[in-house]
């Protein structure tokens, strides 16, 4: 059985009766069992997946109403709640937490007969960009097991690229979908802020994070967006996309479109192979009829500092709930004083989460807020103005997704500032609420390179059309597993 097919091809094959969802899911589970010891994408595998796929097949055979996913096997980042399923956030703190409700995205996918094959690894509470901060051990890059797969949605990207599922859902707070997509050679999408409900996504930094799909093709991403986007009464930040069909007209091309090349994202520190791939992508877009020109966003150089200041502040507040009384690690209350009890419970957070919580207590505190938090909010406002001005002139913006190639596991873990700078090209979309996509574009000595395109808010359809056009120009090597 060919597990490498796209989501849309899978659906067509099941519809036509060429394959059964049950066989495909059973082969997918076998695949997970054979490769995941090495890759460690999965934290939990759904033992009922095959049985659930069998039920979908029964509906197909009986001519009953079948959901649009036709039993497609999907993996879910383990910070998105599935009712009656463990949702750990890759943290010892939530090691035994079983979600009591479905996230809205899960409800929508269940209604469309998707099959969840399992929950996948992440940096603890989505704080990181390598999965090295998972309390349950890092995931490995399928292109080279000595290298990080990116993060924080590393398990999602690994599971898609290693054919352990057809598509995955991750979450993107500062690049956490696009970064691993780039490092593992999959498509990764961060929608316009509010396009996808965050209800049931365990909060890290509510004001900027979004759930997003990781898939093999841009068309699959458009399909996933059709499944999960839209207004939700349980998330007041969602926006009404009027049931937009992101897949229709995806072949529209980009002739006549104006594309800005963000100067600050192709500057110092960029790997020569990444720069060369970016220039190649620009040439290809021009050959498709777009015009490309440099644009400067001055605030980009301050964006990473602003991003970490804002996200740490929100994390400090969001993670206050893990006091072991409402959520958290289980041990008896007898013999403890209130504060020492909570401190003991919080020992179950990993080092990066603790560091960000300390920062989250510090940067908005009286005496320091003016220097850090308020200034970060001002940078966010000014960056938003700059990018809005850019979109008056340009339809799209282009950058490399990550300025460097995937690096070895352990290489940067002790250097927080060098890790910060890996985010330099991705945080802008989060701080400004714009949609952004990473497309697999090149490969340097066996390590993938992704290209990022951004569009103005609610121009997700245009963004997908452009990404699809660029994707059609690319031929990439087969993954060596």
């Amino acid at each position, binding site marked *: 059985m060919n597990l490498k097919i796209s989501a849309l091809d899978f659906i067509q094959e099941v519809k036509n009766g060429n394959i059964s969802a049950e066989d495909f899911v059973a082969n997918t589970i076998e695949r997970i069992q054979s490769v995941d010891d090495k890759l460690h994408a999965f934290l939990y595998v759904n033992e009922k997946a095959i049985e659930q796929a069998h039920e979908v097949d029964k509906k197909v055979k009986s001519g009953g109403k079948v959901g649009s996913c036709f039993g497609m096997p999907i993996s879910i980042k383990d910070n998105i709640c599935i009712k009656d399923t463990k949702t750990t956030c890759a943290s010892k703190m939530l090691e035994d937490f079983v979600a*009591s409700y479905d996230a809205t995205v899960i409800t929508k996918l269940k209604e469309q007969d998707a099959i969840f094959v399992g929950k996948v690894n992440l940096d603890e509470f989505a704080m990181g960009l390598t999965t090295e901060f998972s309390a349950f051990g890092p995931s490995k890059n399928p292109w080279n097991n000595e290298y990080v797969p990116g993060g924080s949605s590393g398990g999602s990207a690994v599971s898609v690229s290693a054919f352990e599922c057809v598509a995955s859902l991750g979450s993107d707070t500062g690049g956490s979908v696009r970064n691993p997509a780039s490092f593992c050679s999959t498509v990764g999408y961060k929608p316009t802020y509010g396009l996808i409900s965050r209800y049931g996504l365990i909060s890290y930094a509510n004001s900027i994070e979004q759930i997003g799909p990781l898939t093999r093709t841009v068309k699959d991403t458009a399909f996933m967006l059709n499944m999960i986007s839209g207004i939700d009464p349980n998330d007041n930040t969602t926006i009404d996309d009027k049931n937009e069909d992101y897949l229709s007209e995806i072949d529209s091309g980009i002739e006549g479109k104006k594309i800005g090349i963000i100067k600050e994202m192709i500057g110092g520190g960029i790997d020569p192979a990444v720069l060369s791939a970016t220039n190649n992508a620009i040439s290809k877009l021009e050959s498709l009829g777009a015009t490309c020109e440099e644009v400067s966003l001055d605030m980009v150089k301050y964006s990473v*500092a602003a991003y970490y200041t804002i996200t740490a502040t929100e994390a400090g507040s969001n993670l206050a709930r893990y006091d072991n*009384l409402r959520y958290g690690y289980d041990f008896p*209350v007898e013999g403890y004083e209130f504060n020492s009890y909570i*401190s003991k419970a919080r020992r179950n957070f990993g080092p990066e989460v603790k*560091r960000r919580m300390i*920062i989250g*207590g510090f940067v908005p505190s009286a005496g320091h807020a003016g*220097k850090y938090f308020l*200034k970060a909010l001002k940078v966010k406002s000014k960056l938003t103005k700059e990018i809005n001005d850019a979109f008056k002139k340009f339809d799209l913006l282009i950058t490399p997704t990550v300025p460097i190639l995937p690096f070895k596991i352990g290489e940067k873990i002790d250097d927080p500032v060098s890790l910060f700078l890996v985010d330099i090209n991705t945080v802008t979309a989060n701080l400004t609420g714009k949609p952004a996509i990473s497309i697999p574009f090149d490969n340097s000595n066996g390590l993938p390179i992704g290209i990022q395109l951004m569009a103005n808010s609610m121009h997700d359809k245009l963004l997908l059309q452009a990404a699809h056009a660029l994707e059609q120009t690319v031929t990439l090597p087969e993954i060596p597993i």
Partner: protein
Amino acid sequence: MVTEEEIEHVSKLMKIDVDDHKEYVDKVHTMIDYFDILDSAGVESEEITIPEIPIANLRDDEYIPFDDKLIEKLNHYKGTYVRAPKMSS
């Protein structure tokens, strides 16, 4: 410039033990020092824009009963209350 004492004080307020000085105080120090770059952004006169959601767009403020008895999922549930540790030592 942030001092180590300030970091240790905030850690205590956040109820986080910083027994491993290198892992926490030193690294947090490095991270916060990096944020000093914000001083050169020249944004002092910039206004902070906050996205506003019209009240009409919010769902009605009505009690929506939950299917499960949520309180029973808490670890230290006793009858109709949750047991917490005593407030003073």
